[in-house]
Each structure stands twice: as C-alpha cells, then as structure tokens.
C-alpha cells in the first residue's frame, strides 16, 4: 500500500460523513417544507406543534421511526431486502458530492461530474428493483417492475438533454459548466433542454406526477409495501434527497449555480435550488398520476424525439455562437 493511502481513506470517510450530514439535515428540512407548503396548497395548516413553527416535527418523526420494530418478512430475500434501501439512499445522496456551491466549494470536483450524476441516478433505480423483488410480495414486485420500466424510458431523454449543456460548455465538470454560464445562464440557450431534464428527472426520482412505482391507490405502497421503521424511512429520505439533488443540479447546470450579484455563492445556489424544490412540491399538489402505458409513451413518443430536436438545435446554436465569435 502506498504511503498516501491512509490520508486518502481518512479524507474520503470525512467527505462521506459531510455529505451524509448535509443530506440528512437538508432532507429533514425539506420534508418539513413540503408538509407546510402542501398544507397551504390544500387549505390546511400542516405541522406547527413540535418546536418553533413545527420545525422539529420531522426530527421527532425520524426518532419515532428509529425506535420501531425492525421487520423483515419471513418469505423475503433477507440480504437484498436489507440492502435495497441503503442502495437507494446511497445513490440519491452521492449526487450531492459533485454539486459546487462556489468556485472552490465542492467536495469532489470530478472531471466527469455530469456522468457521475447520471450513473448515481440509475443506481437508485436498481435499489427499487431489489426492494420489489426481495419483498416477495406481489404489490412490491409490480412496483419494482414499474420502476425499471420508468428508468429505462426516462434515462435516455435525461442524458440527451444533459448532452446539450455539455456541448455548449465543452466540459463534463460541474464547476466548469457554472463558470461558462458567466456569459448567460444555459436556460436561455437551452429552454427545451431544461424542460426535458426537469421532466425526466422527476420521473427518475419517482416524484408526482411520476410516482407510479409506489402509487398508493393502486399498489398500496409499491416497492416499499413491506418496509417499515427505519428501512422505510430510508426510502422516504432518499426521495427527498432526490428532490434536492435534482433541483440543485438543475440550478447548477441551467440556472448559473452559485453565480449571482451581492450575495455569497452558496446562498445563490440555495435560493435557486429551493425555487425549484417549491415548483416540485407545487406539482405534487396539483397534478395526478398517469397510467404506466401513458407514461411510457410520453417518454418514447414525445420526450425522446424532443431531446433529439434539442440536440440538433444545440448544434445550430454552437455554430451560430462561433460565427458571432462569442464561444
């Protein structure tokens, strides 16, 4: 083992701890935020009893879930059943590692940051399938199957949409992509790309209106039907981690990330991110769930062709910008 290894391991563990801490904190707040915002949208109040303005409600809920009995169904495939929520949560949380909050404020400035994010998104879906399969329950299996069908269909437009950003910036690194946006946010050059990325992203994190894998009124709980206590909470936290990373990435790739006047970078990033988070919650309050076949044909027959059009459009843009001498 080379001499530098202990340091690398120490650094990596510290970084993961920081990510985990950040994710948990943000997610707890997000859950609270969603419950309050949904409450407002739905003509009710939402949690307001535990702590100031009910801020500690989700903490209390998490503590309760931690103390619940740990149940693994007798027929379940134990190893996969236990691993599945970890895989899902890991995938959702790791995307945070490459989101830059400032020029040097980034945990891992990966050269292939965008690729890493796409990969981590797919990993979570693998976890859903594991959960659905390992539960040995028919509803779970149906949920898992839906998750896979959804992933396969939406991965493609998602990646193709991101390609537009990559072509414009000439880089896969998140920090570089933000720097390039000093001349103008990519949402102006890539309005279609932003729409496709955001829609497909919602599908990838199973958020309404794409919450089919867990569609309560049909599949009871979908892939997490058999889960309870902390294992269930991990799925729950992963969903919100997904909401946050989708918004943070959209802010980074399309809305200029940390860039903005007067305020410090991280504040700008948070502001933009939460604006998107709010939009996601709003969607949940007003939309409903399509059927699986409708969902799939929307991806294959509409989003995918659209993302190809976007790609052609991007190529034309690059040509035009070169001609202007801007890029």
């Amino acid at each position, binding site marked *: 083992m080379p001499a530098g290894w202990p340091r690398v391991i120490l650094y990596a563990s510290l970084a993961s701890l920081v990510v985990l801490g950040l994710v948990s904190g943000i997610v707890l707040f997000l859950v609270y935020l969603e419950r309050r915002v949904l409450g407002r949208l*739905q003509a009710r109040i939402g949690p307001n009893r535990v702590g100031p303005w009910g801020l500690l409600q989700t903490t209390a809920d998490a503590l309760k879930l931690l103390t619940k009995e740990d149940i693994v169904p007798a027929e379940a495939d134990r190893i996969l059943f236990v691993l599945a929520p970890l895989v899902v949560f890991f995938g959702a949380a790791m995307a945070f590692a490459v989101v830059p909050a400032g020029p040097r404020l980034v945990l891992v400035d990966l050269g292939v940051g965008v690729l890493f994010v796409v990969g981590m998104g797919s990993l979570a879906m693998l976890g859903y399938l594991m959960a659905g399969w390992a539960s040995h329950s028919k509803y779970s299996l149906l949920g898992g199957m839906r998750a896979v069908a959804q992933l396969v269909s939406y991965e493609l437009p998602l990646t193709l949409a991101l390609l537009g950003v990559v072509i414009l910036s000439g880089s896969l690194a998140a920090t570089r992509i933000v720097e390039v946006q000093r001349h103008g946010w990519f949402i102006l050059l890539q309005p279609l790309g932003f729409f496709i990325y955001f829609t497909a992203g919602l599908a990838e994190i199973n958020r309404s209106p794409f919450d089919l894998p867990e569609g309560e*009124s049909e599949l009871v709980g979908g892939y997490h039907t058999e889960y309870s206590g902390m294992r269930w909470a991990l799925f729950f936290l992963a969903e919100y981690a997904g909401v946050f990373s989708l918004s943070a990435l959209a802010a980074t790739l399309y809305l200029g990330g940390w860039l903005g006047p007067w305020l410090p970078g991280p504040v700008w990033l948070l502001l933009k991110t939460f604006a998107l988070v709010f939009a996601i919650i709003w969607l949940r309050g007003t939309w409903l*769930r399509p059927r*699986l076949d*409708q969902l799939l044909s929307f991806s294959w027959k509409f989003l995918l062709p659209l993302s190809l059009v976007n790609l052609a459009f991007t190529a034309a843009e690059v040509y035009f910008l070169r001609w202007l001498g801007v890029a």
Partner: protein
Amino acid sequence: MTPAATRDAGAKREALAGAFPGLAAAEEHGVLVVDAPPGQAQDVLGYLKEAWGLNQLTDLTAVDYPERRSFAVVYRLSRVPEYDTAVVKVSLPRAHPELPSAAGRWANADWLEREVFDLFGVNFPGHPHLRRILTWEGFPGHPLRKDWEVAAELSEGIEEREEELTINVGPQHPSTHGVFRFKVRLDGETIVELDPVIGYVHRGMEKLLESRAWHQIIPYTDRFDYLASMFNNQAYVMAVERLAGIEVPERAEYLRVIACELNRIASHLVAIGAYGLDVGALTPILYTFREREKIYDLMEMLCGARMLYSYFRIGGLGYDVPEAFWDRLPAFLAEMPRRIDEYEELLTGNEIFLARTRGVGVLTGGHAIDHGVTGPNLRASGVPYDLRRADPYSLYSAFDFEVVTGERGDSYERYLVRVREMRESLKILEQAARACPREGPVLAKVPKILKPPPGEVYAHVESPRGEVGCYLVSDGRPQPYRFRWRSPSFNHLSVLRELVKGAKVADLIAVFGSIDVIGAEVDR
C-alpha cells in the same frame, strides 16, 4: 299504445289476462302484482320485458312463509327511462324451492339470484355459477328463513386459494372504499379476469330488522349507505307511511327535500374528492371536505348528528329547524357554485385526468339497464332516468331542475354527471328554501306502537348512488315480517367485472372509483 304505456291498471290486467288466461293479477299501492305459477314464471317475465318494455330487473328477493309451506320469490321490474313498474311473485314449495334462472334475461339476476340462494336456499337451475355471495362457503343454513337459528358454533370460513398470477386487491387496500376483495388475474399489468368477493361487512341487517319495532328501524337504515343516510331514512319512512296510510305535513316534506339535497351534495363531494385520490390527485379531496364540513354543520343544526342522521320519523321529522338555519343555508348556497368551479379547475380540464378517465370503463346505456344500474352511473350512459322525475315522490314534481346526462358512459362522464348534479341540487335547495312554510307541524300524529295493516309495499328514492328501495311485508304485528333493502351499489358492483376486462391495474381503480360504491350498502 302498449298496455304498459297507460297507467290504467285495469287495462293492464286485461292485456295480461289475454296473454296468459287464468293468471291472477292484483293491484297493491298502485303497483300491478302478478302471481305466476313456477312453470309459467319465465314466460311471464319474458312477456313483461318484451311486450311491455319492463327492461330493468330492479330487485329480486324472496319472502319465507313457513305456515304456508312456501317461499314467495319476488321480481320487481321497471321500465327505463319512461318509468313503469310491475311485480311478479312466484310461490315455491318450501321443500323443493327451485325456479329457472333469469340470468340470461337480465345480467344482474346473476348476483341477485346468488343472494336469494345464499339467504333463502332457493335453487336456480341454469344459473352459471350458483354459490353463496354474502355469507361464506360452509355457512350453516340460510339465515333469512324464518326457522333458521344461530348455530352454536359457526364453522370456519374457508378461503379459496388460487395462486400464480392472482393478486388480491383488498379486503385491505387503500382504494377499495370499504371492505371488498377483488381476485384479479394479471398478465403483467393487464387484467385477465376479475372476481369481486363481497360480504365482508354483511351484518344480517334484513334478518335483524325483522325483530325491531317499526320506529326502531330508522337508525339502522342510516348504516346502509352511510354517506347518504337521509335518503335511506326517506326510503324506509316513505314505505311505512304508504303501508300505514300516514299523511306527512307539508312543512316536513319541504324539510325532507332540503335535508336530502344537502346530503346529495355532501355525498357527491366525497365521491369526487375520493375519485381524485384514486387517480393520484391529493388535493381535491381536501377542498371537497372543506365544504362537506359546512354541510355537516347545517345537518348538525337540523338533527344534532353530522353523518348518521336518523332525522326522519314515520310521519315527518324528529325535530323542527332552528331559526338560524334559514340564515346559514342561503350563505352556503351562495358560496357553493364558486367552490364547485374550484374543484373543476383542479380536475375537469386536467390533461392527465382526461387521459386517465376518458374512454375508460365505458358502460353503454343498454348494458347499464340490463345490469340494474341506476343513478348517476346510468345517466352518464345517456339514459335520462331519475326517480325524482320518472316516478316523482315527495315534492319533487314541484321543483325545476335538469336531469343531467352524459353520452359516452365512461369514467370521466360519471365524474362529470356528479359535478353537474351538485349544481342542480343547489337549484332545488334554493327553490325549496324559498317555498318552505316557516310555520307548521313537522310530525304527524303516529301511534307509539305502530301496527300497519297486513300487506306489502315498496318505496324507492333517488339517492346519490341510484335507486334505493325498501320492500316491506307486514303481517299486522309491531315488527315487519320481511324487510328488504334494494341497494344500488350491489348492482353497480356486479357490472365492474365486464368494465375492466383487458384494462390495466390502474384502470381498475379509476373505474371502480367512478362507479362510487359503498361497501356497507352492498353487503347490508
């Protein structure tokens, strides 16, 4: 003009005697009752359906007469949409009760005959799959027979087990709206076969009520369709009033209409909100429940209860209204149209909602009639049949309102018909509130221990779900001899199987939600 098109009972009897010489027919409470011998029953039923156009089997039930050593099987037929009705009674020997099945003639005879078989032990040769429906396989005896006694030990329920592709939706499932079970055979997400299993909340109400005094029965009726208690009250008290010849004060009739129409709106609010939930929209139900609370406040002013009202009495109402009610009601009526617009904004035009419900679960008018479907489900299929118009009861002939219909009979129109019916109910409420006398009695003089004369009667009302009917047989004692509840949900549920064949799992929920079934009413 066919004899049925006239309301003249004499002409009808003559026509019937022409077709079937020697057949006994009488008139009871304005309804033609035909006594057919078992051998002739199918011919008579066929004749009434084909020649007189009595195209709907409203109800099929039986009455046990041990001292006559016979069962009377009672077919109640209606013509839809131009209302007319007739009853066919068939007397069967108690030792060998057998009657050819009518399942080939009316689709809903399938379930109704299973019910008579289950509760009375009458056999219907020719029925495709005669088996118990409300009690379980292995249940001892037939509970609605007069000589049935609660067995010391009821045998264990035997679960049928089918494996492989079958999943059980229910009895515990977020979207079953009560306790049902659907055995669904799936190919991927496509439904190959669906078999509804009911009876989970069968409380033996019809048996139980044979031992309650006439006045005592009202609170039990609340618990059939618990979202529309007022209508259940109404169907029952109307039947008793007809049987005992009791006049209801005019003011009470107005208040009954007001109570019922408020209840209709409350019930449709739940139907629409829960339907949103079924197709994945979380928000509408919270909006509809907000207004439902306001209706419940009004109901509380009327009778002190918010959901299970027991407001009606034989001969009128339990309580007079407080003065403040007349201020609160107009305020509610003024606010409500705006609120309905709000729900419609959330659902009616929503692209995904349209994609999920349009053309899903299509029920044609003819099919609906054949299955005994009534209420909004029937009207959505384009049949303008509303008992408030077809066979006006209470004061309904005095009010101006539209019978809302759809065209295609899909889930979307069933939803839309309910929304539009709420607006029509508001119209009726406005007229009734204006016309209701401010002074006067709300309860007729009725003896504490009521003994209606021997006889039979059937009364029906247009509940938010369809035709709720109450068939009473009195033998002059202080309790009913037979109490029969005709529930719309029972018939509506039997149609589901055909509506979802070949559809997706998600469609099952979307269709099931759209026919708006109440479990407690199905199982009774």
